[in-house]
Protein backbone atom coordinates (compact mmCIF):
# COMPACT_ATOMS: atom_id res chain seq x y z
CA UNK A 1 0.00 0.00 0.00
CA UNK A 2 2.82 2.37 0.31
CA UNK A 3 4.56 0.84 -2.67
CA UNK A 4 1.98 2.45 -4.96
CA UNK A 5 3.01 5.97 -4.03
CA UNK A 6 6.67 5.10 -4.57
CA UNK A 7 5.94 3.49 -7.95
CA UNK A 8 3.84 6.44 -9.12
CA UNK A 9 6.46 8.90 -7.92
CA UNK A 10 9.20 7.04 -9.79
CA UNK A 11 7.15 6.87 -12.99
CA UNK A 12 6.29 10.55 -13.06
CA UNK A 13 9.56 12.23 -12.06
CA UNK A 14 12.50 12.66 -14.39
CA UNK A 15 15.46 10.30 -14.65
CA UNK A 16 17.48 9.67 -11.53
CA UNK A 17 20.57 8.97 -13.61
CA UNK A 18 22.38 11.07 -16.17
CA UNK A 19 22.01 10.01 -19.83
CA UNK A 20 25.74 9.59 -20.41
CA UNK A 21 27.28 10.00 -23.08
CA UNK A 22 24.69 12.48 -24.30
CA UNK A 23 24.95 14.64 -21.20
CA UNK A 24 28.24 14.76 -19.37
CA UNK A 25 28.73 16.02 -15.83
CA UNK A 26 30.49 19.33 -15.56
CA UNK A 27 33.55 18.94 -13.39
CA UNK A 28 34.17 21.22 -10.46
CA UNK A 29 36.73 23.98 -10.48
CA UNK A 30 40.24 22.97 -9.28
CA UNK A 31 39.73 19.32 -10.11
CA UNK A 32 43.06 17.51 -10.44
CA UNK A 33 42.87 16.38 -14.04
CA UNK A 34 45.45 15.83 -16.74
CA UNK A 35 48.94 17.22 -16.17
CA UNK A 36 50.25 19.70 -18.74
CA UNK A 37 53.14 22.13 -19.00
CA UNK A 38 53.65 25.51 -20.65
CA UNK A 39 56.98 24.72 -22.19
CA UNK A 40 58.05 28.31 -22.97
CA UNK A 41 58.17 29.23 -19.29
CA UNK A 42 60.02 26.09 -18.16
CA UNK A 43 63.57 26.71 -16.93
CA UNK A 44 64.48 22.97 -16.84
CA UNK A 45 65.50 23.12 -13.17
CA UNK A 46 64.34 19.57 -12.37
CA UNK A 47 62.60 20.35 -9.05
CA UNK A 48 59.45 18.59 -10.25
CA UNK A 49 61.49 15.47 -10.95
CA UNK A 50 62.95 15.52 -7.45
CA UNK A 51 59.68 16.01 -5.65
CA UNK A 52 57.51 13.54 -7.55
CA UNK A 53 56.53 10.65 -5.23
CA UNK A 54 56.02 8.17 -8.06
CA UNK A 55 59.03 9.43 -10.06
CA UNK A 56 57.23 9.75 -13.36
CA UNK A 57 58.83 13.00 -14.63
CA UNK A 58 62.10 13.06 -16.58
CA UNK A 59 63.75 16.41 -17.30
CA UNK A 60 66.77 16.66 -19.60
CA UNK A 61 68.72 19.91 -19.61
CA UNK A 62 70.94 19.01 -22.58
CA UNK A 63 68.13 18.00 -24.92
CA UNK A 64 65.68 20.59 -23.50
CA UNK A 65 62.88 18.07 -23.01
CA UNK A 66 60.29 17.43 -20.31
CA UNK A 67 58.69 14.02 -20.26
CA UNK A 68 55.93 12.59 -18.11
CA UNK A 69 54.54 9.06 -17.88
CA UNK A 70 50.78 9.62 -17.63
CA UNK A 71 50.21 6.04 -16.46
CA UNK A 72 52.62 6.24 -13.55
CA UNK A 73 51.46 9.68 -12.47
CA UNK A 74 49.09 9.66 -9.50
CA UNK A 75 47.86 13.23 -10.18
CA UNK A 76 48.72 14.42 -6.71
CA UNK A 77 49.74 17.95 -7.74
CA UNK A 78 53.04 18.15 -5.83
CA UNK A 79 54.95 19.18 -8.98
CA UNK A 80 52.42 21.95 -9.65
CA UNK A 81 53.04 23.39 -6.17
CA UNK A 82 56.79 22.96 -6.31
CA UNK A 83 57.49 24.54 -9.70
CA UNK A 84 59.36 27.84 -9.14
CA UNK A 85 58.05 29.51 -12.32
CA UNK A 86 54.55 28.01 -12.11
CA UNK A 87 54.54 26.55 -15.61
CA UNK A 88 52.82 23.27 -14.66
CA UNK A 89 49.06 23.11 -14.43
CA UNK A 90 46.32 20.54 -14.21
CA UNK A 91 43.36 20.54 -16.56
CA UNK A 92 39.76 20.31 -15.42
CA UNK A 93 39.14 17.14 -17.37
CA UNK A 94 40.61 13.76 -16.60
CA UNK A 95 42.94 12.03 -19.03
CA UNK A 96 41.10 10.10 -21.73
CA UNK A 97 41.60 6.32 -21.73
CA UNK A 98 44.18 5.07 -24.24
CA UNK A 99 44.67 1.73 -25.92
CA UNK A 100 48.38 1.41 -25.11
CA UNK A 101 50.83 2.97 -22.68
CA UNK A 102 52.84 5.87 -24.00
CA UNK A 103 55.02 8.68 -22.65
CA UNK A 104 54.19 12.34 -23.21
CA UNK A 105 57.16 14.40 -24.39
CA UNK A 106 57.46 18.18 -24.61
CA UNK A 107 60.43 19.75 -26.42
CA UNK A 108 61.47 23.33 -25.83
CA UNK A 109 62.02 25.22 -29.08
CA UNK A 110 65.01 27.51 -29.57
CA UNK A 111 64.09 31.05 -28.62
CA UNK A 112 64.28 33.48 -31.56
CA UNK A 113 67.03 36.11 -31.07
CA UNK A 114 65.66 39.40 -29.77
CA UNK A 115 64.99 41.90 -32.52
CA UNK A 116 67.31 44.87 -32.46
Amino acid at each position, binding site marked *: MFMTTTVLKNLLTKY*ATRLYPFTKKE*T*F*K*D*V*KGELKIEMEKCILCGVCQL*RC*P*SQCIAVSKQEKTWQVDPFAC*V*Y*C*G*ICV*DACPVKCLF*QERLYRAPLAEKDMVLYVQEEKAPAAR
Partner: protein
Amino acid sequence: MARTVLPFGPQHPVLPEPLHLTLTIEDEIVKEAIPKLGYVHRGLEKLAEIRDHTQMIQIVERVCGICSTLHAMCYCQGIEALMGVEIPPRARFLRVVWAEMHRMHSHLLWLGLFADAFGFESLFMQFWRIRERIMDLQEATSGNRVIVSVNLVGGVKRDIDAETARWILDTLKIVEKETLQLKSTIMDDFTVKSRTVGKGVLTKEKAYELGAAGPTLRASGIVQDMRQTGYAAYSELDFSPVVETDGDCYARTVCRFNEIFQAIDLIRQAFAKLPAGELAVKAKGLPNGEVVSRVEQPRGEVLYYLKGNGKKFLDRLRIRTPTFANIPPLLDMLPGCDLADVPVLILTIDPCISCTER
Protein backbone atom coordinates in the same frame (compact mmCIF):
# COMPACT_ATOMS: atom_id res chain seq x y z
CA MET B 1 29.89 -35.91 14.06
CA ALA B 2 32.33 -35.49 11.23
CA ARG B 3 34.21 -32.22 10.88
CA THR B 4 34.52 -30.44 7.58
CA VAL B 5 37.16 -27.87 6.75
CA LEU B 6 35.87 -25.12 4.50
CA PRO B 7 37.86 -22.31 2.89
CA PHE B 8 36.19 -18.92 3.02
CA GLY B 9 37.57 -16.36 0.62
CA PRO B 10 39.76 -14.80 -0.65
CA GLN B 11 37.23 -14.18 -3.41
CA HIS B 12 33.77 -13.86 -1.94
CA PRO B 13 30.87 -11.70 -3.11
CA VAL B 14 30.45 -10.14 0.30
CA LEU B 15 34.06 -9.24 0.96
CA PRO B 16 35.29 -5.94 -0.41
CA GLU B 17 38.90 -7.07 -0.05
CA PRO B 18 40.60 -10.49 -0.04
CA LEU B 19 40.78 -12.29 3.29
CA HIS B 20 41.05 -16.02 3.74
CA LEU B 21 39.60 -17.95 6.65
CA THR B 22 39.87 -21.68 7.15
CA LEU B 23 36.66 -22.66 8.91
CA THR B 24 36.25 -25.96 10.71
CA ILE B 25 32.55 -26.73 10.86
CA GLU B 26 30.59 -29.48 12.49
CA ASP B 27 26.99 -29.83 11.41
CA GLU B 28 26.89 -26.24 10.08
CA ILE B 29 28.15 -24.68 13.33
CA VAL B 30 31.57 -23.12 13.13
CA LYS B 31 34.05 -24.54 15.61
CA GLU B 32 37.31 -22.82 14.70
CA ALA B 33 38.61 -20.18 12.33
CA ILE B 34 42.19 -19.60 11.23
CA PRO B 35 42.99 -16.47 9.23
CA LYS B 36 45.42 -16.12 6.37
CA LEU B 37 46.53 -12.71 5.15
CA GLY B 38 48.94 -11.56 2.50
CA TYR B 39 46.89 -11.15 -0.65
CA VAL B 40 47.39 -7.39 -0.95
CA HIS B 41 50.71 -6.89 0.80
CA ARG B 42 52.51 -4.03 -0.92
CA GLY B 43 55.38 -3.37 1.49
CA LEU B 44 54.63 0.33 1.85
CA GLU B 45 56.46 0.72 5.14
CA LYS B 46 59.75 -0.08 3.49
CA LEU B 47 59.31 2.80 1.04
CA ALA B 48 60.07 5.15 3.91
CA GLU B 49 63.72 4.32 3.44
CA ILE B 50 63.86 5.72 -0.08
CA ARG B 51 61.37 8.56 -0.08
CA ASP B 52 61.92 11.65 2.01
CA HIS B 53 59.55 12.62 4.74
CA THR B 54 57.46 15.03 2.66
CA GLN B 55 57.02 12.57 -0.21
CA MET B 56 55.83 9.95 2.27
CA ILE B 57 52.57 11.85 2.75
CA GLN B 58 51.51 10.80 -0.73
CA ILE B 59 52.49 7.18 -0.07
CA VAL B 60 50.75 7.03 3.28
CA GLU B 61 47.50 8.40 1.85
CA ARG B 62 47.35 5.48 -0.52
CA VAL B 63 47.49 2.80 2.18
CA CYS B 64 43.69 2.80 2.21
CA GLY B 65 41.29 4.48 -0.15
CA ILE B 66 38.44 4.95 2.28
CA CYS B 67 40.32 6.58 5.12
CA SER B 68 43.09 8.24 3.12
CA THR B 69 43.07 11.73 4.60
CA LEU B 70 43.12 10.37 8.13
CA HIS B 71 46.30 8.41 7.45
CA ALA B 72 47.95 11.57 6.14
CA MET B 73 46.67 13.55 9.11
CA CYS B 74 48.10 11.08 11.60
CA TYR B 75 51.45 11.07 9.83
CA CYS B 76 51.60 14.87 9.65
CA GLN B 77 50.65 15.12 13.32
CA GLY B 78 53.54 12.84 14.25
CA ILE B 79 56.10 14.73 12.15
CA GLU B 80 54.83 18.07 13.47
CA ALA B 81 55.25 16.84 17.04
CA LEU B 82 58.81 15.71 16.31
CA MET B 83 59.81 18.97 14.66
CA GLY B 84 57.96 21.12 17.17
CA VAL B 85 55.69 22.80 14.61
CA GLU B 86 52.40 24.35 15.71
CA ILE B 87 49.81 24.51 12.94
CA PRO B 88 47.53 27.55 12.52
CA PRO B 89 43.95 27.33 13.92
CA ARG B 90 42.24 27.57 10.54
CA ALA B 91 44.14 24.49 9.36
CA ARG B 92 43.03 22.58 12.44
CA PHE B 93 39.36 23.25 11.78
CA LEU B 94 39.65 22.46 8.08
CA ARG B 95 41.27 19.12 8.96
CA VAL B 96 38.21 18.33 11.07
CA VAL B 97 35.92 19.05 8.11
CA TRP B 98 37.71 16.66 5.79
CA ALA B 99 38.05 13.99 8.48
CA GLU B 100 34.33 14.02 9.21
CA MET B 101 33.49 13.91 5.51
CA HIS B 102 35.60 10.78 5.28
CA ARG B 103 33.83 9.26 8.23
CA MET B 104 30.45 9.86 6.64
CA HIS B 105 31.37 8.38 3.29
CA SER B 106 32.98 5.37 4.92
CA HIS B 107 29.95 4.61 7.08
CA LEU B 108 27.55 5.02 4.17
CA LEU B 109 29.70 2.65 2.11
CA TRP B 110 29.68 0.15 4.94
CA LEU B 111 25.92 0.36 5.43
CA GLY B 112 25.44 -0.36 1.74
CA LEU B 113 27.77 -3.37 1.82
CA PHE B 114 26.13 -4.63 4.97
CA ALA B 115 22.70 -4.54 3.37
CA ASP B 116 24.14 -6.41 0.41
CA ALA B 117 25.52 -9.10 2.74
CA PHE B 118 22.07 -10.39 3.53
CA GLY B 119 20.70 -9.82 0.06
CA PHE B 120 19.02 -6.43 0.41
CA GLU B 121 20.46 -4.98 -2.79
CA SER B 122 18.05 -2.11 -3.30
CA LEU B 123 18.99 -0.67 0.09
CA PHE B 124 22.64 -1.02 -0.95
CA MET B 125 21.96 1.19 -3.98
CA GLN B 126 20.05 3.76 -1.94
CA PHE B 127 22.89 4.21 0.54
CA TRP B 128 25.46 4.54 -2.22
CA ARG B 129 23.31 7.11 -3.96
CA ILE B 130 23.44 9.28 -0.84
CA ARG B 131 27.16 8.67 -0.67
CA GLU B 132 27.59 10.19 -4.15
CA ARG B 133 26.74 13.59 -2.72
CA ILE B 134 29.61 13.31 -0.24
CA MET B 135 31.95 12.32 -3.06
CA ASP B 136 30.88 15.48 -4.88
CA LEU B 137 31.74 17.51 -1.79
CA GLN B 138 35.17 15.92 -1.63
CA GLU B 139 35.79 16.52 -5.32
CA ALA B 140 34.78 20.16 -5.14
CA THR B 141 36.87 21.00 -2.10
CA SER B 142 40.02 19.04 -2.78
CA GLY B 143 40.07 18.02 -6.42
CA ASN B 144 39.81 14.26 -5.95
CA ARG B 145 36.90 12.01 -5.16
CA VAL B 146 38.71 9.32 -3.24
CA ILE B 147 42.30 10.17 -2.32
CA VAL B 148 41.74 13.54 -0.69
CA SER B 149 45.21 14.97 -0.69
CA VAL B 150 45.10 18.16 1.33
CA ASN B 151 47.47 17.63 4.24
CA LEU B 152 50.96 19.06 4.49
CA VAL B 153 53.50 19.02 7.26
CA GLY B 154 52.49 22.32 8.84
CA GLY B 155 48.87 22.70 7.75
CA VAL B 156 46.61 22.16 4.77
CA LYS B 157 46.99 22.96 1.10
CA ARG B 158 43.55 24.13 0.10
CA ASP B 159 41.04 26.54 1.48
CA ILE B 160 37.25 26.43 1.75
CA ASP B 161 35.74 29.87 1.14
CA ALA B 162 32.41 31.09 2.51
CA GLU B 163 30.39 30.32 -0.62
CA THR B 164 31.61 26.74 -0.77
CA ALA B 165 30.90 26.39 2.94
CA ARG B 166 27.30 27.42 2.40
CA TRP B 167 26.94 24.91 -0.43
CA ILE B 168 28.43 22.19 1.78
CA LEU B 169 25.96 22.93 4.57
CA ASP B 170 23.02 22.85 2.12
CA THR B 171 24.16 19.50 0.74
CA LEU B 172 24.52 18.12 4.25
CA LYS B 173 20.93 19.06 4.97
CA ILE B 174 19.80 16.97 2.02
CA VAL B 175 22.06 14.08 3.09
CA GLU B 176 20.61 14.17 6.58
CA LYS B 177 17.04 14.15 5.32
CA GLU B 178 17.66 11.26 2.94
CA THR B 179 19.52 9.19 5.53
CA LEU B 180 16.73 9.69 8.04
CA GLN B 181 14.27 8.32 5.50
CA LEU B 182 16.25 5.09 5.45
CA LYS B 183 16.53 4.82 9.21
CA SER B 184 13.44 2.71 9.81
CA THR B 185 14.36 0.42 6.92
CA ILE B 186 17.62 -0.64 8.46
CA MET B 187 16.81 -0.44 12.13
CA ASP B 188 13.20 -1.61 12.48
CA ASP B 189 12.89 -4.17 9.71
CA PHE B 190 12.00 -7.68 10.85
CA THR B 191 14.37 -9.44 8.45
CA VAL B 192 17.32 -7.24 9.31
CA LYS B 193 16.74 -7.77 13.00
CA SER B 194 16.37 -11.52 12.78
CA ARG B 195 19.75 -11.73 11.03
CA THR B 196 21.65 -9.42 13.32
CA VAL B 197 20.19 -9.36 16.82
CA GLY B 198 21.96 -11.77 19.14
CA LYS B 199 24.57 -12.83 16.61
CA GLY B 200 28.26 -12.42 17.19
CA VAL B 201 28.10 -11.16 20.74
CA LEU B 202 31.31 -9.60 22.04
CA THR B 203 31.13 -8.99 25.77
CA LYS B 204 32.59 -5.90 27.39
CA GLU B 205 35.47 -7.66 29.11
CA LYS B 206 36.43 -9.62 26.01
CA ALA B 207 36.36 -6.53 23.82
CA TYR B 208 38.72 -4.70 26.18
CA GLU B 209 41.03 -7.64 26.65
CA LEU B 210 41.32 -8.60 23.01
CA GLY B 211 42.22 -5.08 21.97
CA ALA B 212 39.25 -4.21 19.77
CA ALA B 213 39.03 -0.72 18.30
CA GLY B 214 36.42 1.66 16.96
CA PRO B 215 32.70 0.84 16.71
CA THR B 216 33.50 -2.80 17.54
CA LEU B 217 34.67 -1.61 20.95
CA ARG B 218 32.07 1.10 21.45
CA ALA B 219 29.15 -1.19 20.65
CA SER B 220 30.15 -3.40 23.57
CA GLY B 221 29.76 -0.63 26.08
CA ILE B 222 33.24 0.84 26.46
CA VAL B 223 33.38 4.61 26.11
CA GLN B 224 36.58 5.22 24.20
CA ASP B 225 37.09 7.40 21.16
CA MET B 226 40.44 8.89 20.13
CA ARG B 227 38.72 12.15 19.30
CA GLN B 228 38.39 12.73 23.02
CA THR B 229 42.15 13.39 23.22
CA GLY B 230 41.51 16.58 21.32
CA TYR B 231 43.70 16.41 18.22
CA ALA B 232 43.01 18.83 15.33
CA ALA B 233 40.19 21.02 16.63
CA TYR B 234 38.19 18.43 18.56
CA SER B 235 39.03 19.95 21.92
CA GLU B 236 37.09 23.03 20.91
CA LEU B 237 34.10 21.15 19.56
CA ASP B 238 31.30 19.67 21.58
CA PHE B 239 30.75 15.96 21.11
CA SER B 240 30.39 12.72 23.04
CA PRO B 241 31.14 9.21 21.73
CA VAL B 242 28.32 7.05 20.41
CA VAL B 243 28.10 3.98 22.63
CA GLU B 244 25.79 0.94 22.59
CA THR B 245 25.73 -1.81 25.19
CA ASP B 246 24.57 -5.03 23.55
CA GLY B 247 27.71 -6.02 21.68
CA ASP B 248 25.98 -7.91 18.86
CA CYS B 249 25.85 -7.12 15.12
CA TYR B 250 22.76 -4.96 15.53
CA ALA B 251 24.48 -2.74 18.10
CA ARG B 252 27.44 -2.22 15.77
CA THR B 253 25.11 -1.22 12.94
CA VAL B 254 23.25 1.26 15.14
CA CYS B 255 26.55 2.69 16.38
CA ARG B 256 27.81 3.35 12.86
CA PHE B 257 24.48 4.74 11.71
CA ASN B 258 24.38 7.25 14.53
CA GLU B 259 27.94 8.31 13.88
CA ILE B 260 26.84 9.70 10.52
CA PHE B 261 24.59 12.22 12.24
CA GLN B 262 27.31 13.01 14.74
CA ALA B 263 29.68 13.75 11.85
CA ILE B 264 27.18 16.14 10.25
CA ASP B 265 26.81 17.94 13.54
CA LEU B 266 30.58 18.22 13.96
CA ILE B 267 30.99 19.73 10.48
CA ARG B 268 28.29 22.29 11.28
CA GLN B 269 30.05 23.24 14.49
CA ALA B 270 33.41 23.47 12.74
CA PHE B 271 32.07 25.83 10.10
CA ALA B 272 30.41 27.98 12.74
CA LYS B 273 33.67 28.39 14.63
CA LEU B 274 36.08 28.56 11.67
CA PRO B 275 38.65 31.30 12.37
CA ALA B 276 40.36 33.35 9.70
CA GLY B 277 44.08 33.05 9.16
CA GLU B 278 46.77 31.38 7.16
CA LEU B 279 46.65 27.82 5.99
CA ALA B 280 50.11 26.41 6.58
CA VAL B 281 53.31 27.10 8.40
CA LYS B 282 56.70 26.45 6.82
CA ALA B 283 58.31 23.52 8.62
CA LYS B 284 62.09 23.72 8.66
CA GLY B 285 64.52 21.05 9.65
CA LEU B 286 64.46 17.28 9.66
CA PRO B 287 62.69 14.93 12.07
CA ASN B 288 64.78 13.49 14.88
CA GLY B 289 63.47 11.19 17.62
CA GLU B 290 60.60 8.80 18.11
CA VAL B 291 56.93 9.64 18.27
CA VAL B 292 53.65 7.73 18.61
CA SER B 293 50.66 9.40 16.97
CA ARG B 294 47.02 8.28 17.14
CA VAL B 295 43.87 9.34 15.31
CA GLU B 296 40.30 8.02 15.13
CA GLN B 297 39.61 6.56 11.72
CA PRO B 298 36.12 5.40 10.73
CA ARG B 299 37.10 1.86 11.68
CA GLY B 300 38.84 2.66 14.93
CA GLU B 301 42.08 3.86 16.38
CA VAL B 302 45.15 3.98 14.16
CA LEU B 303 48.63 4.19 15.60
CA TYR B 304 51.73 5.52 13.85
CA TYR B 305 55.21 4.96 15.21
CA LEU B 306 57.73 7.22 13.50
CA LYS B 307 61.44 7.18 14.10
CA GLY B 308 63.72 9.78 12.59
CA ASN B 309 67.45 10.25 13.00
CA GLY B 310 68.03 13.71 11.59
CA LYS B 311 68.54 12.60 8.00
CA LYS B 312 66.30 13.13 4.99
CA PHE B 313 64.79 9.63 5.17
CA LEU B 314 62.90 8.28 8.14
CA ASP B 315 64.43 5.36 9.99
CA ARG B 316 61.21 3.50 10.63
CA LEU B 317 57.55 4.01 9.87
CA ARG B 318 55.17 1.61 11.52
CA ILE B 319 51.41 1.69 11.01
CA ARG B 320 48.93 -0.29 13.07
CA THR B 321 45.52 -0.02 11.53
CA PRO B 322 42.20 -0.70 13.32
CA THR B 323 41.29 -3.77 11.28
CA PHE B 324 44.54 -5.38 12.39
CA ALA B 325 43.36 -4.94 15.97
CA ASN B 326 39.87 -6.20 15.19
CA ILE B 327 40.88 -9.55 13.71
CA PRO B 328 41.46 -11.32 17.09
CA PRO B 329 37.96 -10.33 18.30
CA LEU B 330 36.56 -11.65 15.00
CA LEU B 331 38.29 -15.00 15.58
CA ASP B 332 36.68 -15.04 19.00
CA MET B 333 33.20 -14.23 17.72
CA LEU B 334 33.09 -16.86 15.00
CA PRO B 335 33.02 -20.17 16.98
CA GLY B 336 29.46 -21.07 17.78
CA CYS B 337 27.73 -19.26 14.94
CA ASP B 338 25.95 -20.73 11.91
CA LEU B 339 27.73 -21.02 8.61
CA ALA B 340 25.21 -18.67 7.00
CA ASP B 341 26.07 -15.95 9.52
CA VAL B 342 29.78 -15.92 8.76
CA PRO B 343 29.64 -13.25 6.00
CA VAL B 344 27.50 -10.96 8.16
CA LEU B 345 29.86 -11.33 11.12
CA ILE B 346 32.96 -10.65 9.06
CA LEU B 347 31.40 -7.50 7.69
CA THR B 348 30.44 -6.10 11.07
CA ILE B 349 34.04 -5.46 12.02
CA ASP B 350 34.34 -3.40 8.81
CA PRO B 351 37.30 -5.23 7.30
CA CYS B 352 39.70 -3.04 5.37
CA ILE B 353 42.33 -5.58 4.44
CA SER B 354 44.44 -3.24 2.34
CA CYS B 355 44.98 -1.19 5.52
CA THR B 356 45.84 -4.33 7.47
CA GLU B 357 48.48 -5.53 5.10
CA ARG B 358 49.99 -2.33 3.90
